[in-house]
């Protein structure tokens, strides 16, 4: 089992989700077992304009705990994160970061995403 604690920069009450990563995928968007997969399956909205295909930055999250218990970021994700607002050393794209079994992860969902209009 893994435990995902979700904090919201906009002040929404935190959520804690316990789940079995070996049972992924939990829905159809993002990598199976990714933060996006887990959040959406538990009724927590995280924007993912590209459908969870690693082609935008709208599912940007900041990992507060357990960064090394997530799958390693690939180059495509790193290139996109370059363009994410409020980038931090522990930023990840929710659609790409897969949670390991037995991991304890805390993520902060930023208040803002970015867009070019």
């Amino acid at each position, binding site marked *: 089992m893994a435990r995902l604690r979700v904090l919201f920069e906009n002040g929404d009450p935190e959520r804690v989700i316990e789940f079995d990563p070996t049972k992924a995928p939990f829905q159809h968007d993002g990598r199976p077992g990714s933060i996006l997969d887990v959040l959406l399956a538990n009724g927590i909205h995280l924007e993912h304009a*590209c459908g969870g295909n690693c082609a935008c930055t709208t599912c940007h999250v900041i990992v507060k705990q357990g960064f090394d218990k997530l799958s390693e970021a690939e180059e495509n994700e790193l290139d996109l994160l370059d363009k994410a607002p409020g980038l931090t050393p522990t930023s990840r794209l929710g659609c790409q970061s897969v949670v390991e079994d037995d991991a304890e992860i805390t993520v902060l969902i930023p208040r803002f995403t970015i867009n070019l209009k």
Partner: protein
Amino acid sequence: MQLDSSQLRVESPRHHDTLPVCLSTLNSQLSTFPVSASKPIPYEATIERIVELAPETRAFYLRLPPATNFTFVPGQFLSCLLPLGGGEVIRPYSLASDPEDPLLEICLNHVAGGPGSHYLFSLGVGASLRFTGPWGTFVLSQPPAAECIFIADGTGIAPIRPMLKRVLATESPHAVRLYYAAISSPHLLYRDELEAIARRHPRFAFTPVLDAPLAAVIEDRYMAADTDRSRHFYICGVGDIVPQLRDALRRAGYERRAVQYEKW
């Protein structure tokens, strides 16, 4: 909290005559909006025209209701919300039209076993399509200060098409080139238009790539042929060819940020 649409969009000039005007406004168009409070409010467009661009490849022309405020930057995509499987499925499609065009245009292949494209190909003129957007950061953030190489594979030409036209609208001494690969000549979308643009713009060269591997063509011309590493690349396509080109160009010495790409 229900978001007001004004929170989701930033006013920007509807008509851009030249790229410098467009690019000078880019910073002011860089907007942020709340993400975790609510979903963006979707637009609802009507399919006004469908064109068979190639076998199993269609362009859908979308009209928004009058007075709808929708602007985008060349290179961006729509996030289509498709009613599938009893729920709503997101499918992103790049905008192939120019921001000044009266209709929005997306183009896509009918993918075997792909529920999104299967659904869209089942729609006729007059049908509604819901989407959010525009999204994406695969755009020209500043006027190219060097030779600009666009590389498109298949329907990856969609975002490149308006980006290319924008670049050519600038006064610039730098060459602009397009390498466009497709599985066959009929699958070279917008070929007549691209050839006409090449005739009008001496600094633009259009090279269809049909009989040779795209990666080999780019490697021969931009990695093996010289040591100039000042060029800027914009690559779009489906599948492994995009990271393959990205990695090869960066390994060959091009700056990381000089190799921009969108992989679908």
